[in-house]
């Protein structure tokens, strides 16, 4: 946690720089990588295909590590959680449903849940309460466009968000402080993060619904 807060301070001191580095890449709507990753996970599920696993590792391990580093993890801790995540991908491959989630979304939730489990082990809840804290897994799959398309659209939409909205999306993911504390640190009025995020999410929803 201490490492994370040091990381936060550094980031907060130059937020615009990070936003620029992170979001300026203009991303074409390209569904191909998502479909390839989904095929690799299928191959693992059906044939325990190690070549497919290696290809998936090459594609995702460096991104998983980058994601963890952005969250403030030290290098060895990031390596460790990448190992655990990829191992879980292997074990759970049969549960992957490409109609329900893009490969990257599925892998992201595995990483997220492992991280939460690790935090929980250091701060355990009473056992009867632990069951209620499971992150919700939505199963509504009645979407008009499929998961790979949605992710590709989302990436493009994220890249086109105004910088201040993109920044609050990023803060939700990479800053564990309560929003009010973030606002205090950034010197912006209380409630600004919430209202900017509301705008960002409304826009992303419109894009997904094909209205933009």
């Amino acid at each position, binding site marked *: 946690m201490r490492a994370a807060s040091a990381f936060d301070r550094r980031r907060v001191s130059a937020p615009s720089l990070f936003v620029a580095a992170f979001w300026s890449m203009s991303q074409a709507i390209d569904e191909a990588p998502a479909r390839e990753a989904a095929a690799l996970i299928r191959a693992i599920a059906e044939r325990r295909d190690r070549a497919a696993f290696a290809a998936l590792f090459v594609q995702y391990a460096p991104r998983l590590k980058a*994601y963890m580093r952005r969250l403030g993890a030290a290098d060895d801790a990031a390596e460790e959680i990448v190992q655990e995540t990829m191992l879980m991908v292997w074990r759970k491959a049969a549960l992957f449903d490409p109609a329900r*989630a893009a490969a990257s*979304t599925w892998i992201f939730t595995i990483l997220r849940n492992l991280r939460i489990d690790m935090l929980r082990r250091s701060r355990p*809840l009473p056992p009867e309460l632990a069951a209620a804290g499971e992150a919700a*897994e939505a199963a509504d799959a009645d979407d008009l466009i499929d998961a790979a398309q949605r992710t590709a659209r989302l990436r493009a939409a994220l890249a086109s968000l105004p910088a201040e909205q993109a920044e609050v999306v990023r803060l939700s993911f990479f800053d564990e402080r309560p*929003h009010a504390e973030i606002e205090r640190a950034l010197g912006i009025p209380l409630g600004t993060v919430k209202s900017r*995020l509301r705008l960002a999410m409304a826009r992303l929803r419109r894009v997904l619904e094909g209205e933009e």
Partner: protein
Amino acid sequence: MIRHHPSEATLMSHAAGTLLPLHAQVLALHLAQCPACRQAIRLGEELGGALLDAELPAAVADDALARVTARLDALSSEPPRAAARAAPPGLDAWTRGRRWRPIGLGIKLMPLVPRDATGTRLDLIRVSPGVALPQHDHTGPEIACVLSGAFTDATGEYRAGDIAEGDIGLDHQPRALTGEDCVCLIATTGFLRARSLLVRLLQPVFGV
């Protein structure tokens, strides 16, 4: 019929896995009953996937693939089954083996998890019909989910399944509506500051 939902900010932090754990605990009660918010969580997870895809790859250790591949052999071939979403525990499950502590006239508290490293605690609070909490404000964020009964404050009326979020600076006086006791699961970060000097003097006694 749920009328009060968590903010987008809270939902996104939950999807991202960055919400304070005890706040997530309270939110889970609402999500179990609210398809719209589950859908929002799903969008947040897709955003997580998109952010992961957008990362510039970081160099991993040279032997990282070899190490994880070696561990594949040790795994059982049995794939883990999808965990069924646990139903949120009923009031009985929360209260079993614990007792209500009166902290004021018509107000009882059942501490579930003491203040953790993030300064957050989890409690059940039970307020008799018509009773108001002392006017107070907050030094940190708070999230509550109504389990039974109902309460009202300047921001609206809250019933079973509703989420009430209090941010730093929220100054309010919740009052239980008539009918049954109002029971809420509540995660509080930081401290409540009572307006009345008398209550402030008594606060150390109550421990809230």
